[in-house]
């Protein structure tokens, strides 16, 4: 799935669907705080509002959402890296899940950047929990978080010289023929 496809405009809120109303409200807040041009690819798969933005703005946006008094996104649920090798110039990505515990609203923010320049600002100054999550993303995808206090590998051994969750490293040896299935592939 390409993140660049399906850039659908946000649908008008339908009164019957509370999730859509809620998402429209969050989206309106995002547009008000950071401008409409900041967000591309606004969609809501399975009811979870998903926006894509740029790495230049990500720190401001998450800091702004954390400080916002209307919908308090105080909780960073999780973040993870992702790799789309076919998207040239946008091969790597980071996906953040925020949660407002006061209003029970979740928000997913994505950023994409080139694999040759995988530099992203850290969130450790906003959320203490970002520390290990970012170390994990560095470990597995080689995303470099500027300003991180201790950006070293976390789950893999220190002397590993590649980032194993990138798609270029297949799980199995692709040259093996004994496991090939002519009908179903591998």
């Amino acid at each position: 799935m390409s993140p660049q496809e399906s850039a659908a405009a946000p649908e008008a809120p339908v009164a019957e669907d509370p999730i859509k109303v809620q998402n429209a409200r969050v989206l309106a807040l995002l547009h008000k705080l950071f401008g409409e041009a900041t967000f591309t690819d606004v969609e809501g798969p399975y009811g979870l509002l998903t926006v894509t933005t740029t790495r230049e703005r990500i720190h401001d946006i998450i800091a702004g959402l954390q400080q916002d008094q209307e919908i308090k996104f105080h909780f960073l649920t999780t973040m993870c890296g992702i790799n789309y090798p076919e998207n040239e110039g946008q091969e790597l990505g980071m996906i953040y899940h925020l949660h407002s515990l006061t209003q029970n609203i979740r928000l997913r923010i994505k950023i994409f950047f080139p694999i040759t320049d995988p530099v992203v600002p850290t969130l450790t100054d906003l959320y203490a929990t970002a520390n290990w999550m970012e170390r994990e993303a560095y470990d597995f995808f080689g995303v470099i978080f500027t300003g991180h206090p201790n950006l070293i590998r976390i789950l893999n051994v220190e002397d590993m010289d590649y980032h194993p969750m990138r798609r270029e490293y297949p799980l199995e040896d692709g040259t093996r023929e004994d496991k090939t299935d002519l009908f179903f592939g591998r």
Partner: protein
Amino acid sequence: MAVNDTLEGTHKIHEEAAAQRHGQLMPLLNDFSQELTTLNLGPTHPATHGIFQNILQMDGERIVSGVPTIGYIHRAFEKIAERRPFYQITPLTDRMNYCSSPINNMGWHMTVEKLLGVTVPKRAQYMRVIMMELARIADHLICNSILGVDTGAFTGFLYVFQEREKIYEIYEEVCGSRLTTNMGRVGGMERDFSPVALQKLRDWLKTFPAVMKEFESMFNRNRIFMDRVVNVGPISAEKALNYGFTGPNLRAAGVDYDVRAMNPYSSYEDFEFDIPVGTNGDTYDRFIVRNEEIWQSLRIIKQALENLPEGPYHADAPHYYLPAKQEVYKNMEALIYHFKIIMGEIDAPVGEVYHSVEGGNGELGFYLISDGGRTPYRLHFRRPCFIYYQAYPEMAVGTTLSDAIVILSSMNVIAGELDA
């Protein structure tokens, strides 16, 4: 605090160094009064209950700093999951929090069902609730009884482990295995509760409360136990949220966030239960919150068992739910579906879904990105242990070594979930 200050040789070194110094301020070569001891807690240490290492800097008995090293049982589940059909990922989830495997299994099934748009019938949902709450009780029993062992009270551990054994016997009746359960399927349960399973469950519901009461009366107001755990390793609600705490550890700090209540799944909205919260977020609060959650889980199980609806135990979704084996042998259609599902040739929609359940340790999230292929394009597990264990150095610094063990124990860090 002086180390080795009883040794004559140390005094001699001190005196020599002082003589060389001539009253000037310069660092001493062998100034034992300033030196910190490096203590290697782990990777294999009986008190860490799992394989992870902490390199502690000790000033006498006080911990000055701690550096955790994790990853000793990292098995690359996220990478492996990228090559496996959905039903083959269930055994991977078993091995994350292996103290409450059914919760992980069900959480994964529900994630896939959300992606596929499969609705599970009420009976299966109630059955899942029963199994998940049993798993939560088993998980909390382990955590609390081991906390007792770490404070020197071995008896309670033996009392409740008997009951955990009975829970595992119920698992065995329901799915055939005990620890890594691989329970249920995408679309429901793989079989209905057998009469034996129901009987075992009813018997256990009768006997367990008395044991739990005994366990609580042994610990809750026990002076020796309270002296060891009250005000040990407290964490404020703000800090706990900032560190991404969830589950009993967050609720002990006073935040009533429970996924079961906030985003009900699998018919949790049908049941009446309370969410216990603590005030200080210390080890004692974590212990009490877990104990109280066991009672609440019992309440849920009783309600679910009483109101267990009649009907099918799986969704009518032949494309995703494996047909019964007898059918596969006799029926062409069932054979085709069986074959397609086993070979992973099901039509999964393109999309991404985040689903979370209340695991034994907190919000257990599955973030699944599907590109329509037979395997997930990307699967990320939000593992509560991994996220809150990073607060451990902060909680342990300033305490003594024996308190650090108790804090670690009360956080219920499960190595399998920590490292995935």
